[in-house]
């Protein structure tokens, strides 16, 4: 019996939830006041709901179809899986996006698909949805399209014209991992496609000589996802691979997805799954690399095995391993060093820099800057405050380590 739209929506959102990205920020600012159409993107992304897994729901994230001719071991949609299959028409996806958008459930669409027939055929379907939304329906909300690495260049060109963001998942941090767990995918080809995207994205930022107008190509840039815990890669390997992607292809984001149980899992998967905390620590480390001036090697060399600590965050772990760099004087230290203090961040550091031009800061000044004083106290000096030498304290780790995770999830 034919499945209803609602049944297919259930199947195809089930199939899409393992993609971690739901971002709707960082694209050009635009709205509908001149066009009289529908939709806007005004800088900050908006999370319209949160699922009980704590994840932001910003976009309608669905697959066009979960039929797939590939057999990636970790994937719920691989050809050898027995999950229920379904397929939307391009028109149905367009309709769902617009109706959801009108009710303010979402910022836009993140459309992906299993590979059906061929890469070009699949990509053509994805592009059609985006094209119809933009040209037939005057839709100015956010669109993220998954890009099929092998698709023809003119399809990619068109995708970039309509989409805010394009992404190709690298899937695993090492080439051997990809070959082993995604046998139909080719690491070299994935990287070549990322590189092509990156060149086009950069080129579109420059106005062309002839027309003086900017061409539009994925103004929200490209992102990718890596699955954590399927192969044996250490955190150092994973983060090293991210740094490589960030620097070579100017990715906006690398998403980490701790591999989690899926319905009808393959027996070729590892039995134990990585703790969710590992994924969280990877995001923190990624953040330290991108916004805090840390070198990945500094963060991953704290432990001999190349993995991040699970019970304390990577910034604190670095601080405890480099106690001789503390305490840091909040009234004199350089911005770079302030950013390295556990408990200070990219919001509080500029406030400190601004406030200390006018007076010497005390602990209660920091409190008013919304700094958690009990957390930073051991690491800083302020007017009227100098801590015990860190090297003399043995209890710091215990002070900060998170409580052991409860086994029951509902405690």
């Amino acid at each position, binding site marked *: 019996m034919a499945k209803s739209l*609602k049944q297919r*929506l*259930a*199947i195809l*959102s*089930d199939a*899409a*939830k*393992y993609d971690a990205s739901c971002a709707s920020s960082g694209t050009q600012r635009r*709205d*509908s*006041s001149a066009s*009289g159409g*529908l*939709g*806007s993107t*005004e800088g900050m992304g*908006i*999370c*319209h*709901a*949160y*699922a*009980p*897994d*704590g*994840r932001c*729901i910003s976009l*309608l*994230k*669905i697959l066009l179809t979960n039929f797939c001719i590939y*057999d990636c071991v970790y994937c719920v949609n691989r*050809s050898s899986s*027995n999950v229920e299959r379904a397929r939307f028409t391009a028109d149905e996806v367009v309709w*769902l996006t617009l*109706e*959801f958008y*009108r*009710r*303010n*459930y979402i910022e836009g669409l993140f459309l992906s698909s299993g590979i059906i027939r061929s890469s070009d055929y699949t990509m053509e379907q994805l592009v059609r949805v985006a094209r119809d939304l933009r040209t037939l329906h005057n839709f100015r909300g956010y669109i993220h399209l998954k890009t099929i690495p092998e698709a023809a260049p003119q399809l990619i060109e068109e995708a970039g014209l309509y989409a805010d963001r394009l992404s190709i998942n690298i899937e695993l941090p090492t080439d051997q991992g990809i070959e082993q767990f995604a046998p*139909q995918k080719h690491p070299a080809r994935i990287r070549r496609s990322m590189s092509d995207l990156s060149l086009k994205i950069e080129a579109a930022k420059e106005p062309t000589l002839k027309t003086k107008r900017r061409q539009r190509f994925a103004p929200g840039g490209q992102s990718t996802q890596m699955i954590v815990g399927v192969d044996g890669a250490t955190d150092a390997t994973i983060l090293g691979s991210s740094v490589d992607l960030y620097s070579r292809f100017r990715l906006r984001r690398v998403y980490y997805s*701790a591999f*989690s*149980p899926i*319905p*009808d*899992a393959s*027996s070729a998967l590892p039995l134990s799954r990585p703790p*969710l905390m590992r994924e969280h620590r990877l995001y923190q480390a990624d953040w330290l690399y991108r916004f805090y001036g840390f070198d990945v090697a500094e963060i991953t060399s704290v432990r001999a095995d190349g993995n991040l600590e699970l019970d304390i965050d990577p910034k604190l772990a670095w601080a405890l391993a480099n106690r001789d760099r503390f305490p840091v004087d909040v009234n004199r230290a350089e911005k770079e060093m302030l950013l390295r203090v556990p408990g200070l961040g990219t919001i509080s550091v500029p*406030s400190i820099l601004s*406030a200390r031009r*006018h*007076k010497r800061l005390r602990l209660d*000044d920091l409190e*008013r*800057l919304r700094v958690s004083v009990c957390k930073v106290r051991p690491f800083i000096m302020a007017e009227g405050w100098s801590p015990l030498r860190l090297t003399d304290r043995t209890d710091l780790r215990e002070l900060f380590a998170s409580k052991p995770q409860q086994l*029951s*999830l*509902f405690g």
Partner: protein
Amino acid sequence: MIRLGLRGRGDLAEWRDAARALLRAGVGPGDVEWQVRYDGADLFGLADDPLPPPDPAVPAPTVPAAFLTLADAVICHRDPARFALLYRLLWRVQGERALLSIPSDPDVARAETLEKAIRRDAHKMKAFVRFKEMGLPRDGRRRFAAWFEPDNFIVGRTSGFFQRRFTDMDWIIATPKGSAAWDGRELTLSDQPSAKPDLIDATDDLWRTYFTHIFNPARLKVQAMQSQMPKKYWKNLPEADLIPDLIAGAEDRMREMIDREATQPKPFHHRIRERE
């Protein structure tokens, strides 16, 4: 002591006019008592004192642009002390030019806390307003209505966002703290409390399906969800009443996935793989 009552429903001009007069008359922050005047309150003899005439000896006040931006947000806050706080800042900034760049100053810190609350409230409004369709289109335009309960007087502030985004449809956002409506030509604002519209929209059912199935039961993080989507918003979110059952069923669903034996692939798989 001068006693002044303001309606204080998010309108900066109301406060600004009074504050300007006080400043030009040289009335210090300690000599004004600001009150919130509820509609009809003057029936009970709570009439305002008249504003004093300008004092020629007082130099023309100056207001940094940053102050106006801050005040524009702070005035929307429901804290009854906001009028006095802003006046104190305005008074002090006449002499202390750099005041607003000292975030550790108690008055500045307090104002920034209120501003931050307004920004958060407005952000949550943009996120959690849910439009429901009202019957058939009229003159070719579809019509929607939403009910929302903001903490502060932010409807005016956020209405432009909705106008720029939902331009091709008619809509009204009703709240206990005012309303905004758009008909394709004009944005109409009111600061009067509205009644809650009673509407049912069949598309909510599809959204609930999506919400249920985009959730991964193997990654339950209830705290993370609740810190971003506090329970006070739940009653107006069509998806929120699904949450308790999703949480309660998560552990079983995860167990089931883990305990399940690997199955045999369907013929479809073998056919594709043979072609390789």
